[in-house]
C-alpha cells in the first residue's frame, strides 16, 4: 500500500473539492473528480489490479494512458458490463463499479495462478506441440475456460451510439502541444480545422508540464475557430483521407432509455496531421511485470496531473535521457529516487540530474517481491564489472526510450525507418495526405516540434507540401533494453505473458519473420496491441538472429489504433434501423383485419389472416379454398412496377426478356422471363403495352431493384443508342388483387367500369380505367389460376379502395388471403416462383421455355449462354410436378430425389410443396434430371433419413384446360 495522494498544488487535472465514491472488486473507495479509475486506485494504495493472461501472475498499473497492458477491468452499470476497459483511461464517475478480470475467486487469491508453476511446460506455442492425443477436443473446453479476459453480458445494450460525418481542410489527431500548434496555424491561415484530443481538454499527456504556452495556444485555437473534439481518439485512416475517431460522451445520468454513450466521427479531410505522440518503451528485466514496476513517464504524470504518488522510494531503470527528467520531476513531487540505473555506458548519457545516484552500465538483475515490489538487485548491464547491489524500494520505473505512435502514418501507407540513435521507428517521409508532427514524428525537442507543427499547419492550409521533420531531442538510447545474461522471465508482452525466452524459442524454431514471431508467441496481439511490447520484441528477435531492427521490420499497422466499441462503429444501425423494413401502404388496415405479418424479402407482409385462433396453416388452407370457391382479396402492392418509355422501348424489352414484347398490341400483356448474361433465370414478370412506346413492367417484389438496375446498365453501357427511360413506380402505385370466380361480381358491385368485365377484357390485358376519381391501371393476369384482377391505383387511394372491395367481397363470402395461400394456389397451378423453384443454375429450358426461345429470332440477354454444351446436356434438371405415391404424405420442401439411399448422387429435389385444400391431397413441384421425359415415373424423395415415394405427374394439378382463368 504505497500509493498515496500528494498535497496540492500537484494534480492539475483533479478537483480536490469533489469526492467520488466507487466500488472496486466489491469494496468501497473514494476518488476525486478528474481522476481516472487507475489514478484513484493508486491514490487508495491499490496496487494489485489484475492477473495475466496465461500464468495468472499478479499485475498492477503499468502506464497512464491508452497503452495500458495490465490494468484491464470490467465496468458494471446496472444490467450491463463493459468488458476489458483500460483503467488508465476510464474517467472516474460517482457510483462506478469496476472489477478485475481473468481471476477466480479473487484477484488476490487466484486459482489460475497454478499455471505459473507449470510455466516451464508452457513456452510459446506449447499448444501446437501437445494436446493432440487422443484428441484436442478433450483439452479444448478447459483451455477455453482459462482463456479470455473480461466477461460480456448477454443483455441487449440499451445505450445509444451515433455517427457524425464531417469535412475539414485539416484534421489534427492529437491535442498535445505539437497537434495544437499545427491546428492553430492551419486555422489561422484560413483552413477549416478539426482537432481530436483524448483528454477532457487539449494539452496531451504532458499537458501538466505547461508553462502557459499551452493555455495561450488553446486560446488561439478557440479564436481561430478550431473545432475541438475532446475525449476522442482517432483510430483509423482509411482510403482517400477518411479519418475515423470515437468520442466518449459523458451523457449525464442514466435514464430508463440508456444514454448516448459514444459518437463515431467520420472526417473526410484534405490533409491529416498525426500528432499522437509516443509511447514509453519499457526495460526488459527479470520479473519486470510485478505490481510496482511501471513506466517512468506514467509515474510522473500520476504525480503531477493527478496528484498521486505511485510509491515512496523509486528505482529507475533507464535506457534514455528522459529518465533524468522524470527523476528530477518526481523527486520534486516527493518521491524519493533511490537510484537511477542506466543501461547505457557513461558516454551515451546526455542528461543529468542533481541529487540522484546514477549508475551507468547498470541494469536490474531481479525484482524482489511478488504481489508488490520490495526492492531490486542491480548488476552491470554488460555482464562485467561490479558486484550486485541491492536496493530497497516500492516502485521501479522503467524508461527504455520512446516508440513514436506511427500508427496513423503507417495505416495511410507510410513507410518507417529505424533511427539507430534514438532506437525507434520513425516515419520515412510522408504518406499521401498525412503529415506527422511532434513525438510521433520522432521530434522530442519541444521548440523544434512546435516550430515544425506551425509550419505544417500553415503549409497545409495553403496547399503546400512540407518537408518531414528531422527527428531530434530523444538523445541516444540502446536498441536492447535487456542486460546481458538475464535469467528468469523478462516480460516483453505483459498482457499475453510473452517473455524474452519465448522470443528466443521462436528464433530457435525459425519463426523469425516478424509476423511469425507475432503469431507464434502472440506478442503484440493483446488488447494493448503491442504499444509497449512490439519494439522490444523485434529488437530482441534481431539480436538473436543477427539482424538490425530495420531488417526485422514491424508488422503492419491496421486500424483501430485503439480498440473501438462495436456500438460506436455501428452508430444508429441497430434494431429497426439496422436495415429498412418496407411496409404496405395499407399496413394498418391489414393489421386491423387480423393480418399475421411476416418478413418476405425486406417487406413486412401478411402471411395469412387467421381468425378464431386458427394456425397459420389452417388460415392459409381456408383462404386458398375460398379463392377457388368464391374470391379472395390480396394486397400485391410490393409487386415491382416499372414504366418503360421511349421510341425504342419495344426493341429494348425484346433484348431484355426471353419473350417477345414488340409484337404486343396496345393493351396486351405477356409473361417475361429475365436472364442474366450467363443464361440463368433471375426474375420474371409481366409486360403490358400501354401505348406504342410506353410499357408497364411488373417484376417480382424482391427483384424490382435488381431488374431496374440491370435495365439501366444495359441501356447506359451497351445499348447506348436506344432511346428509352426506365422509371420505377413501385411506391407510386398500390396494388389490390381480386382472385376467384366471383372477382368481377364484387368489382361490379363496387362500381368498377363495365368495360373491365371478363366478357370485354381478356386475360393478359391491361386497361386504364377509373373508380370515381381514382385512376386505375387494371391488369388481368393470374398467379392463382382463377379469374383475377390486379388493380393498380394511386398509392394514397389504396386503403380506401381496398376497404370498399373488401366490404363487398366479405358480403360475397370472400376472404383476405396472404402469401402462404398464394403459394398454395400457384403451386396447385404449377406456376413457378423464381428463387424458390429455380436457383443459380436454372436455365429457361429447364422450366419449359425451350420452345419459346426457339421461336424468337431476336437476340436477348443471356441467349448465347444457352448454346453452350452445359445448356444442351440431356441430364439437366427440369421442372416437374410431383404427387406422393400414397396420395397423402406431403413431400417436404428441400427433400432430395434419389433412387438409392445415401451416399448417392441426387437426381433432383422438391422445390415447393403444399397441401391442396381443393384436392384434399399434397401437391409439389421439383427439379428432376430429365424430368420432362419422366411423366408417370415413380421416384423416391429423401428427407432427413425419411423416404417417401412419389410420382412424376402432369402440371397443373388443377384446371388443366385453364378455363377458370377466364371467369
Amino acid at each position: 500500500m504505497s500509493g498515496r495522494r500528494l498535497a496540492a498544488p500537484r494534480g492539475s487535472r483533479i478537483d480536490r473539492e469533489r469526492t467520488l465514491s466507487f466500488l472496486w472488486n466489491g469494496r468501497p473507495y473514494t476518488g476525486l473528480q478528474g481522476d481516472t479509475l487507475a489514478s484513484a486506485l493508486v491514490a487508495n494504495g491499490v496496487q494489485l489490479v489484475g492477473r495475466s493472461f496465461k500464468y495468472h501472475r499478479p499485475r498492477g498499473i503499468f502506464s497512464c494512458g491508452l497503452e495500458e497492458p495490465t490494468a484491464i477491468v470490467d465496468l458494471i452499470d446496472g444490467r450491463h458490463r463493459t468488458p476489458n476497459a483500460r483503467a488508465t483511461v476510464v474517467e472516474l464517475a460517482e457510483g462506478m463499479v469496476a472489477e478485475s478480470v481473468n481471476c477466480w475467486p479473487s484477484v488476490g487469491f487466484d486459482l489460475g495462478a497454478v499455471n505459473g508453476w507449470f510455466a516451464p511446460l508452457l513456452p510459446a506455442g506449447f499448444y501446437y506441440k501437445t494436446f493432440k492425443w487422443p484428441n484436442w477436443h478433450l483439452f479444448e473446453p478447459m483451455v477455453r475456460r482459462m482463456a479470455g479476459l473480461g466477461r460480456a453480458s448477454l443483455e441487449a445494450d440499451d445505450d445509444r451510439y451515433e455517427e457524425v460525418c464531417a469535412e475539414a481542410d485539416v484534421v489534427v489527431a492529437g491535442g498535445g502541444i505539437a497537434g495544437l500548434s499545427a491546428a492553430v496555424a492551419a486555422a489561422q491561415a484560413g483552413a477549416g480545422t478539426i482537432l481530436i484530443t483524448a483528454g477532457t481538454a487539449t494539452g496531451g499527456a504532458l499537458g501538466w508540464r505547461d508553462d502557459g504556452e499551452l493555455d495561450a495556444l488553446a486560446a488561439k485555437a478557440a479564436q481561430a475557430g478550431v473545432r475541438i473534439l475532446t475525449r476522442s481518439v482517432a483510430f483509423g485512416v482509411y482510403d482517400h483521407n477518411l479519418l475515423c475517431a470515437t468520442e466518449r460522451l459523458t451523457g449525464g445520468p442514466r435514464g430508463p432509455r440508456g444514454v448516448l454513450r459514444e459518437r463515431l466521427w467520420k472526417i473526410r479531410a484534405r490533409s491529416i496531421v498525426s500528432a499522437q505522440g509516443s509511447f514509453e518503451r519499457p526495460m526488459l528485466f527479470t520479473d519486470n511485470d510485478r505490481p510496482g514496476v511501471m513506466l517512468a513517464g506514467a509515474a510522473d504524470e500520476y504525480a503531477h496531473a493527478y496528484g498521486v504518488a505511485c510509491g515512496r522510494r523509486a528505482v529507475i531503470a533507464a535506457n534514455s535521457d528522459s529518465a533524468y527528467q522524470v527523476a528530477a520531476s518526481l523527486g520534486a513531487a516527493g518521491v524519493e529516487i533511490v537510484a537511477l540505473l542506466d543501461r547505457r555506458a557513461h558516454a551515451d548519457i546526455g542528461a543529468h540530474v542533481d541529487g540522484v545516484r546514477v549508475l551507468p552500465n547498470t541494469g536490474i538483475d531481479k525484482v524482489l517481491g511478488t504481489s508488490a515490489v520490495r526492492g531490486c538487485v542491480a548488476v552491470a548491464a554488460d555482464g562485467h564489472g561490479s558486484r550486485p547491489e541491492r536496493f530497497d524500494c516500492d516502485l521501479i520505473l522503467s524508461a527504455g526510450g520512446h516508440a513514436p505512435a506511427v500508427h496513423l502514418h503507417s495505416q495511410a501507407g507510410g513507410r518507417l525507418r529505424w533511427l539507430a540513435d534514438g532506437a525507434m521507428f520513425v516515419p520515412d517521409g510522408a504518406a499521401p495526405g498525412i503529415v506527422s508532427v511532434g513525438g510521433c514524428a520522432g521530434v522530442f525537442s519541444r521548440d523544434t516540434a512546435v516550430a515544425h507543427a506551425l509550419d505544417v499547419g500553415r503549409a497545409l492550409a495553403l496547399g503546400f507540401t512540407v518537408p518531414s521533420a528531422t527527428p531530434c531531442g530523444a538523445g541516444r538510447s540502446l536498441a536492447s533494453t535487456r542486460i546481458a545474461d538475464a535469467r528468469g522471465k523478462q516480460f516483453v508482452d505483459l498482457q499475453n505473458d510473452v517473455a524474452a525466452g519465448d522470443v528466443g524459442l521462436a528464433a530457435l524454431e525459425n519463426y523469425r519473420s516478424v509476423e511469425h514471431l507475432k503469431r507464434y508467441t502472440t506478442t503484440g496481439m493483446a488488447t494493448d496491441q503491442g504499444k509497449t511490447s512490439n519494439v522490444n520484441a523485434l529488437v530482441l528477435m534481431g539480436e538473436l538472429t543477427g539482424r538490425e531492427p530495420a531488417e526485422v521490420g514491424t508488422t503492419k499497422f491496421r486500424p483501430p489504433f485503439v480498440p473501438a466499441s462495436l456500438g460506436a462503429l455501428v452508430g444508429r444501425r441497430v434494431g429497426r434501423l439496422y436495415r429498412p423494413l418496407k411496409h404496405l401502404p395499407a399496413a394498418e388496415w391489414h393489421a386491423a383485419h387480423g393480418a399475421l405479418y411476416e418478413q418476405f424479402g425486406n417487406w413486412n407482409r401478411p402471411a395469412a389472416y387467421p381468425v378464431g385462433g386458427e394456425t397459420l396453416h389452417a388460415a392459409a388452407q381456408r383462404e386458398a379454398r375460398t379463392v377457388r370457391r368464391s374470391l379472395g382479396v390480396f394486397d400485391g402492392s410490393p409487386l415491382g412496377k416499372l414504366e418503360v418509355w421511349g421510341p425504342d422501348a419495344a426493341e429494348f424489352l425484346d433484348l431484355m426478356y426471353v419473350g417477345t414484347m414488340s409484337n404486343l398490341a396496345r393493351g396486351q400483356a405477356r409473361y417475361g422471363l429475365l436472364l442474366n448474361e450467363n443464361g440463368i433465370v433471375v426474375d420474371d414478370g409481366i409486360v403490358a403495352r400501354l401505348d406504342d412506346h410506353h410499357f408497364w413492367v411488373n417484376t417480382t417484389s424482391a427483384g424490382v431493384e435488381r431488374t431496374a438496375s440491370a435495365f439501366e446498365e444495359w441501356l447506359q453501357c451497351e445499348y447506348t443508342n436506344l432511346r428509352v427511360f426506365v422509371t420505377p413506380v413501385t411506391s407510386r402505385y398500390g396494388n389490390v388483387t381480386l382472385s376467384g370466380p366471383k372477382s368481377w361480381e364484387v368489382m361490379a358491385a363496387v362500381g368498377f367500369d363495365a368495360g373491365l368485365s371478363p366478357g370485354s377484357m381478356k386475360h393478359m390485358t391491361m386497361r386504364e380505367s377509373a373508380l370515381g376519381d381514382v385512376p386505375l391501371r387494371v391488369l388481368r393476369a393470374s398467379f392463382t389460376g382463377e379469374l383475377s384482377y390486379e388493380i393498380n391505383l394511386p398509392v394514397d387511394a389504396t386503403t380506401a379502395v381496398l376497404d370498399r372491395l373488401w366490404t363487398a367481397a366479405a358480403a360475397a363470402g370472400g376472404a383476405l388471403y396472404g402469401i402462404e395461400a398464394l403459394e398454395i394456389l400457384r403451386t396447385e397451378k404449377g406456376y413457378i416462383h423464381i428463387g424458390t423453384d429455380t436457383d443459380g443454375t436454372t436455365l429457361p429450358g429447364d422450366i419449359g421455355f425451350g420452345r419459346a426461345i426457339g421461336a424468337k429470332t431476336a437476340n436477348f440477354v443471356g441467349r448465347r449462354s444457352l448454346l453452350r454444351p452445359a445448356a444442351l446436356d440431356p441430364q439437366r434438371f427440369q421442372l416437374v410436378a410431383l404427387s406422393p405415391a400414397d396420395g397423402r404424405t406431403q413431400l417436404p420442401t428441400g427433400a432430395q430425389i434419389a433412387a438409392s439411399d445415401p451416399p448417392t448422387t441426387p437426381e433432383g429435389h422438391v422445390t415447393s410443396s403444399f397441401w391442396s385444400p381443393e384436392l384434399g391431397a399434397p401437391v409439389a413441384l421439383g427439379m428432376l434430371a430429365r424430368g420432362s421425359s419422366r411423366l408417370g415415373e415413380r421416384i423416391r424423395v429423401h428427407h432427413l433419413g425419411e423416404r417417401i415415394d412419389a410420382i412424376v405427374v402432369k402440371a397443373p394439378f388443377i384446371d388443366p384446360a385453364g378455363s377458370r382463368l377466364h371467369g
Partner: protein
Amino acid sequence: MDSAAGITVELDRGVHVAALRYFDADALGERIGALLGAALPSEQRSVRGRFAVGDTPYLLAWRSPNECWVLCDDGAPIEALRRSLADSRDACVVVQTGGILALTIAGARTRDLLCRLGSAASIPRTGEARTGRFADITVTVVGLAEAEVLLLVDRAYANHLLEWIRATIADF
C-alpha cells in the same frame, strides 16, 4: 411534426410529385419553357418558379441528366404538363405523387441533423438538389434556405428515415 431544440421536421402530405424525363434538356428547354417559365435545372441544382398557367409555385429538383422532379402543391398543373408532353417522343412525365414523400427540416440544427444522416459531400448548399445516401437509403435533399431543406424519399423507406431522424433529434 417532430421537433427538438433548434429543429423541426415535418412530413408534407399535400405535395404532388412527378418525374420529368427527357433525353436532351437543351432540346426540351424550348418546348417546356413555355409551361414552366424557366430552364430545367442543371446538375445538382434546384429551381423554383411558377407555372405559366394558374401561377402555381413549383420546385424542380435535378435527379440525373435525364430526369428532374417536379414538386407542386396542386396536382392539376402536373397533369397539364403530362398531357402537354403526351405526344412527345423526347420527354414524358411520370406521376410519382404518394410514391415520393417530402419532409421539410428547418432550424439552426438542420445541418447537424444532416451530417448525422449522411456524408458531408452529399449535403446540398442552398439552391442545390443532391441525391445521396442518408440513413443508409437514397434521399434527394434540396437546399431551400440556409437552415431549411426538403428531403425527398421513396415512400417505402420514409418510415425508416423518419425513425432515424427521430432517434437523432431525441438526443439533441
